[in-house]
């Protein structure tokens, strides 16, 4: 269990999906990177589940970010 991350850090956002959310944040002066998102694994559900499992195995080795 990691200590909860305090809420005070200045907002810096990555946006996946509705571009209007990125536009609104940018208008409010928030730095934002909007992804040219497309369905992972070509949208194939079986492949997506496999990819998720592989990434989870990988992530369990990774320490939480400070």
């Amino acid at each position, binding site marked *: *269990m990691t200590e909860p*991350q305090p809420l005070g850090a200045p907002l810096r956002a990555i946006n996946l999906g509705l571009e209007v959310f990125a536009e609104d944040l940018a208008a409010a002066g928030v730095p934002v990177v909007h*992804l040219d*998102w497309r369905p992972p694994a070509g949208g194939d559900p079986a492949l997506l589940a496999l990819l*998720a499992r592989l990434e989870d195995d990988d992530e369990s080795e990774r320490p939480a970010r400070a």
Partner: protein
Amino acid sequence: MLRAEVWRSFYQDSVVLMRLAESLRALDGVEEAAALMGTPANQDILAAAGLATEETRTATPGDLIIAVRAASHAAAAAALGRARALVVERRQPTDGGGRVRPRTLATALREMPDATVALISVPGAYAAFEARRALNHGLHVFLFSDHVPLADEIALKQLARRRGLLCMGPDCGTAYLGGIGLGFANVVKPGRVGCVAASGTGLQAVAAHLAALGEGISHGIGVGGRDLSAEVGGLMTTLALELLATDPATEAIVVISKPPAPDVLPALERAIAQVAKPVVVCCLGARPAAASPARWVSTLADAAGAVAAVLGGHPWTPSRLDAADSRARLAGVERRGEKRGPGVLGLYTGGTLAHEARLLMEPLLGQASTRFDGASVPLRIVDLGDDEFTVGRPHPMLDPEARSARVREAGRDQGIGVLLLDLVLGRAAHPDPARALADAFAEARRTAAAEGRGLVGVASVVGTPDDPQGLTGQVATLRSAGIEILPSNADAARFAALVARPALAPSLLGDGP
């Protein structure tokens, strides 16, 4: 004449596609147009609309389908050409600085290694996958997507707790971090009130009422509508309370939700009791099981009023209809001398606002129906943002047409005398929702009048002067159509009940003049 094209591996978000379809429908000679990703649900919609072709049936979820039915070959070809131009113009592979847009979270993080939050509004089937990636990279997650399986929600929130991060959602419409809104959010000033909300429109309503009272938001942590269910057990609500309890910018806290599951209520009360700051709880329809150090209120407007009073150090009592104002409005309605149907129909875009209205009106008018089932009932309150009305089409806060059609239809229903409405402004919402609603209401009223009936419109507006739509102008537009605007959803609900049943005056207005 039906023409369709499939653009392979060409993702566009649902708002962009809604606007694209709208502009195609507006072209000369175009009868119907669709612009959809090739998901199974969208394939069904296309088939039901008679817009499917052999080619569209081969589209996969990552493929864009554009289908047009037009009066002639030439009109259909022109519309498809226009669609190509609009999409290509819109879909720039580079950002404003000429950099190529990243396609994955990992590449985005190389561009912004100190990112703090990921906003995720991709289709539900991919949402948990992307949210897990974001949490694993140490980002708070604002998860707007819905249709995320409950098991995935629990796993994501457990992962978030282990990493000390927020997983706001799924199905989280609104949040504020550092006073800045994420998703559907009214523009408010940063301030000292922290909110934990299992309801997007509930949070919007409280934030907008606070703004009117001169108070701002420190953080508004959305948790998604299922967080206080027995299965999720309040995983994010309790973490949010811990974070706000120690946040230096937060001086008081408001908790907003529908009633928690009975098994979760004691845990929520314990978490609240740990907080050394004043807490106001608005769990619409729930009371504390035990004596509570928090102040429990029963409307969203009262949540804002109570917390502002605590911070301002002045006394507070629950709000009720302004008697003099309501009598004057009622007299105005009665002076028209119209015959009206006996029923009240609530047509809502905000789910929690619909729920709040139902709780206030059922004791006055009897049990409400929450669906369109054809029966003539004294009280019907429908949340048009509910999943059953939004399959394959945008939420009514983005696209007012679905509600406008229902409003116009109400003009033909001789059982309906009062229409109860909400209007939600803010970032991401439609740029001029009042115009669509006012026009539809005016038409409904003309239809009713032609049949010798009156129709009373009662509404409240969730908005602030800083919202992109402008609060004053939106209110004026509704008023110009003859809609009565009340200062809160609770007041609108009570006033609608009063119009339908003026004999309620003594209980709703007291025995004053």
